[in-house]
């Protein structure tokens, strides 16, 4: 990336780099956090980062297929959030905890 005075417009690669930064932050939160809801939100952050890549490539190729893909990602994320939060509710009702380390009965 060239340093110095800010250009009038940024190249698409800056958008993709921002997407990579957000994805890396999502991975970091997913691996580091112990609260199941925060882990779930980190997944949403990764999905958002990928959506930004889709829309950027759509701009580069001058086609709107990337917009359709990110639309489908949004729809699937909505379905995933509904089911995932229902699972979290059930887990909390059964175990009274949100710590993912304490919900490890599959390992024992």
């Amino acid at each position: 990336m060239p340093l110095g005075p800010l250009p009038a417009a940024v190249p698409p690669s800056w958008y993709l780099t921002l997407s990579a930064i957000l994805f890396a932050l999502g991975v970091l939160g997913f691996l580091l956090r112990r609260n199941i809801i925060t882990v779930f939100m980190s997944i949403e952050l990764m999905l958002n980062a990928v959506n930004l890549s889709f829309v950027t490539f759509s701009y580069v190729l001058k086609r709107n297929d990337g917009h359709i893909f990110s639309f489908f990602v949004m729809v699937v994320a909505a379905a995933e959030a509904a089911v995932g939060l229902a699972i979290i509710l059930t887990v909390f009702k059964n175990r009274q905890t949100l710590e993912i380390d304490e919900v490890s009965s599959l390992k024992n």
Partner: protein
Amino acid sequence: MDALLFMIFAAIAVICGINLVVQTHPISSALSLVGVMGALAALYLLLGGEFIAAAQLVVYAGAIMVLFVFVIMLLNAGTEKKMVVRPLGKYLGAPFLLIFFGMIAYMIQRILPASSPVVFGAFQGGTAEGIGRSLFTVYLLPFEVTSVLILIAILGAIVLARKEVD
């Protein structure tokens, strides 16, 4: 002007993203995620995605995050006790994450070395008309299958949430 807007919203997105990872209370993380989504909606507008920007605000920042905040309130989720970072993760994981990110950034710069800069209004295909035309011609089958997926998800969520505790 475009570069300035990109910088502002990219900075908001990155700061909110970092805040999401470091905050210990889930409600702070949820509000940070709303900030990321709002900033990304502005970036979608810059890239010519009018419909996607609106859908991002309505579906993501509106519906999905309300669901998250509702569950956090319902479960009365408190502050996380302690972030357990094992030494292996601290001294091996962080460099690997940086290397992973650096490789992605390098590949991006190699793939798109000298493409023309992003100018607002240069791409007009992302309007509601353009998206709708694609959605109901080329992508008609995936669109219809999606409705079945959402129906199944709703049924699954209801079945899971009303299951009695034994």
